[in-house]
């Protein structure tokens, strides 16, 4: 087991944002807005992948607010 596994994802996101800010890089990505409201069971895998991406977007934005 390495020490990296014990670092919370929040802190990783936070540090990545901090480094990006210092370097003047825009980390925030515009993610596609998918239509998941008409979900069929057969597309559950694809939908949960998109949902994961959307959850990442929320945590990144929350991490950014924490810096302000």
């Amino acid at each position, binding site marked *: 087991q390495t020490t990296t596994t014990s670092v919370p994802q929040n802190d990783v996101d936070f540090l990545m944002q901090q480094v990006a800010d210092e370097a003047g890089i825009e980390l925030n990505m515009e993610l596609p807005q998918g239509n998941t409201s008409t979900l069929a069971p057969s597309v*559950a895998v694809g939908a949960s992948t998109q949902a994961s991406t959307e959850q990442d977007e929320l945590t990144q934005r929350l991490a950014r607010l924490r810096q302000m």
Partner: protein
Amino acid sequence: MWNLTGKGSSSDIFNRQQQCHIKAYGLVSRALKLDEQNLKDKSLVIDLYSEGIKELESGISIQIEGIGESYEKAKRLQEKMRTTLQMARDRLIILKGVSDLHNLPLAD
């Protein structure tokens, strides 16, 4: 509100998780959009985060026990929802603190 025992067919479980995600994403996105504008009145932002937190809690409470790609993805999504939930709760605490300060008679 979902039946929190988490019983149901696999597609039912995934659909319930998706519905919780969709609602939570909509609410927290709206909260973030207002929060990022740094408005003086935080009441709507606080309400939106609170509602989003409830949906995240519902989503996380769904038991996902099974083998296969769908289950693995659903478990990963659940972990991400857990992270969002924790950060949204932290944000709410900060906003409520700020809001309370503004409501003090001497704060103006």
